[in-house]
């Protein structure tokens, strides 16, 4: 690799490298990790807004009892598509965008290992998104079987279901290629002297996430393919009348689904673990234990899937095994939170926008962790399964967890991407609006779930009216607050205070040794790390 790079440098003056196609073709044909990272981030933000519009339609219907805005069938399409779009279209591609941009910069590599495959794994996503969103417009509309696509309900659906299945296949292929690329890049392309245990934690969490992706995306592809053949080719995988079992679908789906949860949170842990030390001006506490905790969470995630299925009626021994295994995940997760707090302890803290988001993340994500522990207790879960308590729980970990960490990371690395410091006032406004409205939206859902409101219903009994009205108001506030982010990013691209190479005072790592904005090609000569 290094030899190749040197040849190219020998042949041309450094500045001529950027000369490729311009305009649209630059983006279609690019193999540059920064361009591809940018495209991933833009794509995921568009999907985030689409999924957000669906969420707000749901909340508008639920604002008061009775049916006002949408009919039940369309309501179910919205809840289903909101889930699929946010998980596969927004959160996952956003993290891949971060990986593309930052991993080569953090490990001192010139690009991703398989640059052309990188282009392909991005360009698979827009067709998948068109299939998914386009399914609203086919006869019968989009799939309304819930994002989990449980059989046999998913077998009943119209052709929107088939489009969703193909979209999932394509996004799965894209994820697997992206994951292979990340694994190979991290294992083979680190700068001399950067051994594994000197790698930034973001790279570690992504390495482990990539293995999870490679392990479970094919499982999902298998599950939805079985639905497809049950629907059209006369098989009976999930049909008892033909010797199949509907519950088998759930086992297969959640064998994918639970690791998937960690796919969406481990890179978030990585981002936060970069930001907290920077603004504490103090090294990360317990680096090694962070790595081990991440790995144990990943391994345990394969042994807990049936905690999503406590109400299917498995034997007591099964319930107990999955309950204990799930509770065990609280230990490494706790270690992480303790490590972050210990990093802040006796640091020299300052709260620029990224730090604000990261601190907010720890605070609110931990609440989602606690409700997760409560849900892990099988008898309590039997009361809470499929209620708004679960909706509250997973939005605390996915919105306050993954999404807040994504915002933290975006504000943190925007100077490196654009060359300008993000506007502190706008960033902080975005944070405080999001934080307040997030809690107005989702905190009351705990009460709704405890009191007995099932999820995925377009209308509800009267005792749930007040909290639903509150949640709907919060949701609209939260949705509108996200436009502030758009303003912050656009402003940052167009101008602002020039960013130094080391854009934040306490920031350490190779990405802060290249100029801001990062030039089109970086680390054509591998940097050499000082021995410790």
């Amino acid at each position, binding site marked *: 690799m290094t030899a190749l790079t040197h040849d190219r440098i020998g042949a041309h003056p450094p500045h001529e490298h950027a000369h490729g196609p311009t305009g649209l073709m630059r983006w279609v044909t690019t193999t540059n990790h920064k361009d591809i990272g940018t495209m991933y981030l833009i794509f995921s933000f568009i999907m985030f807004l689409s999924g957000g519009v669906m969420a707000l339609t749901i909340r508008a219907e639920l604002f008061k009892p009775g049916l006002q805005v949408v009919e039940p069938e369309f309501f179910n399409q919205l809840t289903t598509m909101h889930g699929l779009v946010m998980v596969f279209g927004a959160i996952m591609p956003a993290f891949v965008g971060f990986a593309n941009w930052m991993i080569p910069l953090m490990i001192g590599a010139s690009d991703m290992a398989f640059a052309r495959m990188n282009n392909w794994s991005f360009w698979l996503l827009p067709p998948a998104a068109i299939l998914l969103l386009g399914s609203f417009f086919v006869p019968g509309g989009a799939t309304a079987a819930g994002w989990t696509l449980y059989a046999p309900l998913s077998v009943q659906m119209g052709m929107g279901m088939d489009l969703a299945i193909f979209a999932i296949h394509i996004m799965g292929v894209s994820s697997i290629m992206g994951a292979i690329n990340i694994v190979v890049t991290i294992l083979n392309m680190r700068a001399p002297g950067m051994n594994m245990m000197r790698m930034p934690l973001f790279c570690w969490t992504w390495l482990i996430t990539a293995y999870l992706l490679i392990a479970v995306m094919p499982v999902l592809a298998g599950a939805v393919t079985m639905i497809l053949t049950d629907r059209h080719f006369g098989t009976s995988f999930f049909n008892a009348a033909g010797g199949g079992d509907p519950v088998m679908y759930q086992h297969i789906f959640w064998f994918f689904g639970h690791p998937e949860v960690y796919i969406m949170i481990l890179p978030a842990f990585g981002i936060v673990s970069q930001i907290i030390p920077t603004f504490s001006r103090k*090294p990360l506490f317990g680096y090694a234990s962070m790595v081990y905790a991440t790995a144990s969470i990943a391994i345990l995630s394969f042994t807990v899937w049936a905690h999503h299925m406590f109400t299917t009626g498995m034997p007591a021994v099964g319930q107990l095994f999955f309950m204990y295994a799930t509770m065990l995940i609280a230990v490494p997760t706790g270690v992480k939170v303790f490590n972050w707090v210990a990093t802040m302890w006796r640091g*020299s803290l300052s*709260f620029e926008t990224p730090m604000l988001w990261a601190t907010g993340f720890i605070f609110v994500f931990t609440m989602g962790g606690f409700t997760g522990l409560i849900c892990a207790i099988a*008898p309590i879960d039997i009361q809470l399964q499929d209620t708004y308590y679960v909706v509250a729980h997973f939005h605390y970990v996915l919105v306050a967890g993954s999404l807040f960490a994504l915002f933290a990371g975006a504000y943190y690395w925007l100077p490196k991407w654009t060359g300008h410091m993000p506007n502190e006032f706008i960033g902080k406004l975005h944070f405080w609006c999001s934080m307040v409205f997030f809690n107005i939206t989702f905190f009351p859902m705990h009460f709704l779930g405890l009191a*007995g409101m099932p999820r995925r219903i377009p209308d*509800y009994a009267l005792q749930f009216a*007040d909290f639903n009205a509150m949640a709907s108001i919060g949701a609209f506030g939260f949705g509108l607050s996200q436009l502030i982010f758009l303003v912050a990013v656009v402003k940052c691209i167009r101008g602002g205070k020039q960013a130094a190479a080391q854009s934040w005072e306490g920031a350490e790592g190779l990405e802060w040794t290249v100029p801001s904005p990062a030039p089109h090609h970086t680390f054509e000569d591998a940097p050499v790390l000082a021995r410790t």
Partner: protein
Amino acid sequence: MGFASRIAGVLPLFGYVSGVFAQDVPSRYNLQQPVTRIATEIYSMHTLMLIICLVIFIAVFGVMFWSVIHHRKSRGAVAANFHENTAVEIAWTVVPVLILLGMAWPATKTVIAMKDTSNPDITIKATGYQWKWGYDYLQGEGEGIRFLSGLSTPRAQIKGAEQKGDAYLLEVDNPLVVPVGKKIRVLVTAADVIHSWWMPAFGVKQDGIPGFIRDTWFAADKEGVYRGNCAELCGKDHGFMPIEVHVVSAEKYAEWVKSKQAQTSSAAADDGREWALAELVDRGEKVFAANCAACHQADGKGLPPAFPPLDGSPVVNGDKAAQIQVVLKGRSGTAMAAFGEQLPDADIAAVITYTRNAWGNKTGEAVQPAEIVAGR
């Protein structure tokens, strides 16, 4: 309810820290008031968990916010340089494990108790249909009783044309009735897609899985009316298939059993006799409203393409025998259920007759219960 008064209704929440443990019905902040041993155990286990989590939360974030306030650069804080401490790290791994063990112990006992469905006084099978429940009393007092139980809230209330009642969306036409204090074993299954039989006050939630039977149990300690919902997404009207259980004294239960059995024998007589066309259409209209209108709509226009129209349909206007087969056996891969399992012969005969003589359909034919028996 006005918008302002509903917002005002939310505000007292913040003064209601003790409201988390409030005992009033219906519950708004906490699990519903339990009336079985299992539900009581779950209720107190949840309270205990909440307290433990709250203590840990305050401890951890007490430390964090201490840092946030005191260890600020703007206050002249200078960063220390420690970045590991083996003793502390072992402690915060081991202590949580011990806390978890303490949580797992009561949970394990409850899991085992929940699974003990042996020696029931009464066994009832609950079958989930899109979108209602069917109950069969299989064993014990009341054996042989079977009926369907569907939402009784009028459509006008849902659409906002009428004032919503107190039990809006939580009321059914035929509630499940059980005697107080007796151990009731519930066999849960489903006919089409997965449903879930959930009664929060009993601490019971069991998925009904088509083609499989799973069991659960409860013994309610207090007479009363208890309400729950289907808890697993089951299609269009998932939000409209409540569960209502009346727990009554032994004497009242015996009376109820008697009246139900009398109804059953009159239903058997209905199945045996010949009917006039007008009689069938009249009865069929009611059966249609209760079982068919959710999909095919009261005007027979359906909601195509998922739910086809019956008005002008070639099946409804064609051969009787073919339509009888569709109604009895359903259409696999669609939401069309096999009503042969759910409804008595007279009802099926009536509803088919109705559809063949309603809206623009004018076959003038009557379908007799005997033809349904032949079609089974």
